[in-house]
């Protein structure tokens, strides 16, 4: 079993969201939902993170930022797009400055729908992400990428 799933550390980045999903992500960390039950810690630093929770859609200016955060996360890593904005652009999809969902710039592993995504949905999404994380972790090790 991979320990990644026991201790998934997250980083949260806010693309061009309306804050709605953002605060719901944060709410997940607070007493009512307490993601730390699953060993989840909000690291705020891509270099420590395993899961990128990203809310809001991609626009011209944050495109490179999102890419860079993703690149700076060490493998194995998963990306969870939270909220309709992050999955498809949502109500803003037709805006001139919106390129669309997060999958426009980085590969997304889990889409969490909702506007705003409910904390429960976010938890579900993260739990699903853990499975993917586990697979990725196995794949990484089978490649012989590292010795334990």
């Amino acid at each position, binding site marked *: 079993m*991979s320990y990644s799933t026991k201790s998934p550390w997250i980083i949260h980045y806010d693309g061009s969201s309306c804050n709605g999903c953002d605060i719901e992500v944060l709410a997940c960390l607070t*007493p009512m939902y307490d993601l730390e039950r699953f060993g989840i*810690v909000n*690291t705020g630093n891509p270099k*420590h993170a395993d899961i990128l929770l990203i809310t809001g859609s991609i626009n011209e200016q944050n495109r490179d930022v999102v890419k860079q955060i993703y690149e700076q996360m060490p493998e194995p890593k998963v990306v969870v797009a939270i909220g309709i904005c992050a999955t498809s652009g949502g109500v803003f999809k037709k805006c001139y400055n919106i390129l669309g969902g997060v999958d426009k710039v980085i590969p997304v592993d889990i889409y969490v729908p909702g506007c705003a995504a409910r904390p429960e949905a976010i938890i579900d999404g993260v739990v699903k992400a853990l499975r993917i994380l586990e697979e990725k972790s196995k794949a990484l090790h089978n490649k012989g990428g590292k010795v334990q």
Partner: protein
Amino acid sequence: MNVLYLVSMIGYIVLAPIFGLVLAGLDRKVSARMQRRVGPPVVQPYYDVRKLMEKDQVTVNKVQDFYVFCFLLFIVITGCIFFAGGDLLLVVFTLTLANVFLVLAAYSSNSPYSQVGAERELYQMMAYEPMVLLTMIGFYLAVGSFNVSDILNGDKMPIVTMVGIFVGFLFILTIKFRKSPFDLSMSHHAHQDIVKGVTTEFSGRTLAYVEIAHWYENIMLLGIVFLFFCNGTWWGYVIGVVVAAVSFFLETFIDNSFARMKWQVALKSSWVVSILFGLINVALLIWVF
């Protein structure tokens, strides 16, 4: 006698991470409960470290690992010297060396937030070092030896004449445990003004080393707390262990009861405490007791 010390040294190497881990886990659990949360499992720190070991190994430069490894190594050596009944001043100096390695690791990455973290870490060292030295001097004056083994077997409880120093030491323990109000250079909390400070650029195994080093370090520091209560009898030891545990959770409580203060406060307050509690107590030890 020598064999005994060898045993306790090996015991430290083997057991300290286990105790350190559990303490770290309990700290998180208790903190969570204080915040009306469920919190992670107690062995969560273990998972974290295993996870970090598993991660893909990336770094920002090739020398960083060396420094971090030395940090861990010298923390362990510090603890070994301590638990082998060694000289307290040597313990302090080795600990300083270890911490300097951590600082260098942060500097070496040449990244903005690591550097600010390193700077703050050094600054914190400057803040707590006098009190640490005074504590050791206090032991010497109270017991007549810098040797842990002598203090362990001394017949009077050091705390009796070292109450002030004990308070001062607890104060700087907040800095050493990286707890609010003085978790300035790095913090377990994400919402830190300097990102992750010292550890910003560490990842994977390097970060795991830092974590493990903290376990070792915490146990060693609690060992010093324990030392205040040794009088060569079994109940002295019991009191020591209990107080050490209590002080650990006291720190957790303090962590949850304070905001991170401005960094300026750290130096001022810990120097004031060093003078008020440490130095005056040392003076009393010299002139009165």
